[in-house]
């Protein structure tokens, strides 16, 4: 679904991505992991076209990215922190996005109901709490029923109830055949969700493959320990 060829990105003198060759499979839940500053967010942002690679190629669903934007119809993105124009109401923000993506009319509004966001509809964004904004953020990612979901730290800032609602939603979407890419620092979450793991270290791929494969390679009991070991610098 998403494929990179020698993807390379340099900020000034800092090499953020060093010639990545990654393939993210369709209909799988892929988890991107790595210590802070390993290039996770930069990688996600290159997929979204927010960051332009210095060299190398990136394909989303067979489409090569170079200044194109229509491919993003296929992607739902939930950023780590979201902000919206503060004087618009929740309803207006949703309408704005619906109008921008007017080709897409199959709305998935399940999360609005589950996260009880209807009662906030008329509120201005500036009067929302951080957690409510994050809920809105989640709703937007799923709203257009896209085949690819990119979730950057989806449960950060959500209360436990909302967080588990979101987790269930992710699992349902996975079953429905979506390709899901996500990052998280909550290791227990991975145990439940992840199928494929991509471990980034200083801009290079350190491990890429199935969950069980990683556990086997590190010789640990579970994924949590295997990842922790990798972060501490264990070689595989």
């Amino acid at each position: 679904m998403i494929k990179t060829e020698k993807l390379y990105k340099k900020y000034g003198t800092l090499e953020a991505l060093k010639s990545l060759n990654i393939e993210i499979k369709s209909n799988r839940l892929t988890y991107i992991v790595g210590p802070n500053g390993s290039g996770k967010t930069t990688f996600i942002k290159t997929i979204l076209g927010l960051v332009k690679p210095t060299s190398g190629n990136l394909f989303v669903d067979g489409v090569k990215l170079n200044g194109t934007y229509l491919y993003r119809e296929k992607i739902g993105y939930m950023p780590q922190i979201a902000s919206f124009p503060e004087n618009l109401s929740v309803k207006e923000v949703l309408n704005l996005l619906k109008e921008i993506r007017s080709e897409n009319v199959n709305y998935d509004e399940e999360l609005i109901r589950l996260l009880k966001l209807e009662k906030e509809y008329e509120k201005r964004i500036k009067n929302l709490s951080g957690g409510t904004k994050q809920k809105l953020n989640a709703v937007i990612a799923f709203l257009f029923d896209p085949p690819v979901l990119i979730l950057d730290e989806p449960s950060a800032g959500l209360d436990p109830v909302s967080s588990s609602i979101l987790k269930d939603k992710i699992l349902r979407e996975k079953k429905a055949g979506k390709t899901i890419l996500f990052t998280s620092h909550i290791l227990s979450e991975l145990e439940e969700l992840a199928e494929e793991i991509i471990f980034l270290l200083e801009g290079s791929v350190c491990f890429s493959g199935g969950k069980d494969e990683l556990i086997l390679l590190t010789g640990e009991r579970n994924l949590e320990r295997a990842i922790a070991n990798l972060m501490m610098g264990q070689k595989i």
Partner: protein
Amino acid sequence: MNALKFIIKYQIHDTLRSKWLIIYTLFFAAISYGLLSFTNESSKVILSLLNINMIIIPLASLVFGTIYLYNNSDYIILILSQPINRKTLYLGMYLGLSFPMALSFLIGTGLPVLLFIRNFKEAGPVLFNLFLGGVFETFIFVSISFLIATLNENKMKGLGLSIFLWMFFSALYDGLILITLQIFRDYPLEIPSLVFTILNPVDLSRLLVILKFDISALMGYTGAVFTQFLGGGVGFAVSILSLLLWSTLPLMFGLRSFSKKDF
């Protein structure tokens, strides 16, 4: 094109509701009403309004514009992760801020003038140029502020640059010209001073009004030269053309660097 329409629509919604815009409108209304109540002489009022506008509009446009882009950086990321062209978003935000600001200037200054319209019987064209100049200033300085904010990641640096640019165009510039003309006073300086004027959008908008007046000599050296050299019709055309260039060039550079930028 549809997406552009929606971005502008929502941006205008957002801007129209902001407190700053209301204060901005009220400020213009208070100043114009005050000036109009003091005197019946329309030319005095127009000149005072002109001087105030040429200071306030560039400052407000530069500061609003820069802060606006910085404050909305997360929102920009959200919209750019949708299937939308970067240029569409940039243009949408630019128009979505410039239109309400220009409108707020027009309403703030226009309503008091309408109240006292009997004082302005013969001043129609001058008044029109005053408003035209103000609208141009808004579009020009918002486009410059967007360019500054796009090129500078650092908020403080961007804001500082905006304020410096404002000081430069509204105060320093005329001083520098005077010094230059003083140094080279033995040479014919009509053409250079014309060029100097065209290079400053604040002077250009001022000229729009001055060209309609007979008091150009009172408004600084550049104004005097411009009137003398170009006279009415041609002078007006040249200043409009230069103002158009001033509003489109920064916008185009901004669009280009916004398209290449990493978020």
